[in-house]
Structure formats: C-alpha cells, structure tokens
C-alpha cells in the first residue's frame, strides 16, 4: 500500500467514480464554494501590494511616487475593484462561517448563530472606524 498520493490511506482498492476537473461548474452552490476559496488569491495579492507600499515608503519619496503612479493606472484600478469585491465576499463568508467554526456558550446555553454573525459585523465596523481614524482622521 502506498500513501504517496496522500488520498487513500485506507481501502485503496475501492472503486472511485472518476470526477471531472470541472465538477464545480455543475451547480451554483459548488461554484460559490470555489469562488469563496479563490478569494485567497486576491487576499494574497493585496498583502503583496501592501508589502510593495512599505518597501516604497522605506526607499524614499521617489519610490513612493512610483507606487502611487502605478496604483492610479487603469489596470491597477480595475484590479483593485476586483480585489475589493473579492475581499467583501471573503468577509461575508468568513462571518457566516464563524458560528460553525466556534460554538459560543453562555451559562450553558448555545449562543444563537445570528448573534455571533451580527457581533462580527459590529466588530468589523468598530475596527474599521478605529483604523480609519488613526490613519486618516488627524
């Protein structure tokens, strides 16, 4: 028995119905799942953009001007619109999954899912407001 592929540690001889690589195109639910998982790419791209911004800041005003010029190019604006949509989708699905990832109990009773989701949204608003104030509000 080989465990090299990592799929079939047990019962390697069972017949498995072959599934197409495009399995997720067959229903909107699957497609939404794959789109949700693919928000990882825009999230990572924005991390790298922020890294580039920090590097430009460290390298002086000319480097920072180059960063700002690139960010206002049409290509970058389109990219950032896509990133923004993807990040909002990530936030929404992340908060939706929060009650499933962590069960909260208060005096032995399970806190209803909707309360956890709503408190996530409130936290999001508060955190965004605080950061915006430090960053832009002075």
């Amino acid at each position, binding site marked *: 028995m080989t465990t090299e592929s990592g*799929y079939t540690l047990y019962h390697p001889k069972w017949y498995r119905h072959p599934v197409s690589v495009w399995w997720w195109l067959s229903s909107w639910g699957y497609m939404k799942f794959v789109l949700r998982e693919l928000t990882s790419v825009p999230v990572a791209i*924005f991390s790298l953009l922020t890294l580039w911004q*920090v590097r430009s800041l460290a390298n002086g005003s000319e480097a920072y001007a180059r960063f700002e010029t690139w960010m*206002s190019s049409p290509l970058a604006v389109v990219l950032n619109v896509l990133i923004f949509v993807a990040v909002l989708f990530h936030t929404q699905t992340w908060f939706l999954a929060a009650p499933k990832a962590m069960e909260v109990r208060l005096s032995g009773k399970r806190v209803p899912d909707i309360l956890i989701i709503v408190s996530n949204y409130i936290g999001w608003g508060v955190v965004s407001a605080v950061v915006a104030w430090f*960053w*832009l509000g002075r």
Partner: protein
Amino acid sequence: MLKKMTPLLWFLFSAGGTVAALLFPLHVLVTGLLIPLGWIDVPGYDSMVSLVSHPLARAYLFVLISLPLFHGAHRFRYTLYDGLKLKHLHVPIVLICYGSALTGTAAAAFFLWNFS
C-alpha cells in the same frame, strides 16, 4: 514534518482569514481605490512615513501583511488539491504556497524592522 505543522498551518489560516475579513475591506478601499482615484485628501509621503515610523504601526503592518499571506497560501493549496484535483503534486504545491508566504513575511520583517 508537514503533519506536525498542520495545527499551526490551520491556526495561521484562521488568524489570517480573520485579519483579512476585519481589515482588508478598509485598506483596499482606501489604498486601492479612494487614494488612487483622488476621492479623499491623500496622506502624502511625509505623513505616511511618520505614521509607519511608530513601532505599533509597524507591528500592525507586519500582521496585516504576513498573516493573510499564510491564510491565502493554505487556502490556495487546498483549492489546487480539490478544485483542480492536483493532490498528487502536493510536494511542489506545499513548497510554493508556504514558501511564498514565508518569503513575503521575511521581506515584510526586513523592511519594517529597518524602517527609519
């Protein structure tokens, strides 16, 4: 080795996902759209430098860059496994995904540590 790391990788995934969910919408909106489109008064180079010079701001930026990179790496790894059925390529996938996240983290640490 990877098996031993699995709990840590899932922790980084969820910590990074939470950081991205809470903070990225505002950052993308401001850095990616409002400033480039000129819709708000830009914090210019000097005020950005004085802001980032603060140690807490640098720690914040480190978290903002690094954790979502690990979140993205972990999630993308499993998307390649399940979405594109590439699990048999798990060695290069693991190396490229977490390798990129580690490189980005090291670069962020370098630039933020030496920031003056």
